[in-house]
């Protein structure tokens, strides 16, 4: 009986991992919460003000993208969760540089352009689902 239970436990674990890997292969469906948050991300990147305090703006943006990442990962929409990693890296590096001291206006302007592009790419993918 113990052996049977052990076999069943191993089989159920194996089934779970197969199910998870299968879920990773299936494209996720349109989601209202993700659509809302990516629009927020688009709007926030467009309104980055390089003449104002960057730390608070970047922190707010990071929190927004992190929210998206946690939600997408928890919901199991792996295809959407992997999209935000590039944007998180771009923001983290921007934050690290602003933590060290003032950044050049040109650097800030280019980072803003890159972040707008990345938010747009993620938003089009999130909104373009069925």
């Amino acid at each position, binding site marked *: 009986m113990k052996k049977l239970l052990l076999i069943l436990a191993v089989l159920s674990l194996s089934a779970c991992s197969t199910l998870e890997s299968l879920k990773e292969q*299936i*494209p*996720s469906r349109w989601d209202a919460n993700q659509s809302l948050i990516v629009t927020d991300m688009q709007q926030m990147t467009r309104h980055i003000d390089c003449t104002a305090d960057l730390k608070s703006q970047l922190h707010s943006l990071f929190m927004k993208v992190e929210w998206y990442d946690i939600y997408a990962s928890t919901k199991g929409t792996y*295809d959407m969760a*992997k*999209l935000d990693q*590039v*944007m998180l*890296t*771009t923001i983290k*590096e921007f934050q690290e*540089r602003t933590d060290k001291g003032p*950044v*050049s*206006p*040109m*650097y800030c302007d*280019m*980072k803003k*352009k*890159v972040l707008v*592009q*990345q938010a747009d*790419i*993620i938003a*089009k*993918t999130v909104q*373009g*689902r*069925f």
Partner: protein
Amino acid sequence: MSDQLIAVANSGDQWAAERAQYALQVHDAVVNGQMSKEEASEVLQDMINTQQLQEQANADQVKAALFFGITQLISMYA
């Protein structure tokens, strides 16, 4: 190297031209002392990462369209 970027910037491909112009702006900013080399390297790497993100997003969109298209066909036959 800049010749290639100038060629892309003047090409008809709006998406690529815009990005090539950004890269040229970064290069000009370094030459004119408006941006440090470290800042420029980071921004240029961001541009490459963004290009890879775009390719991944395109692939995901095609995959999703294919998957749901086939699913619709299956539901029609059911």
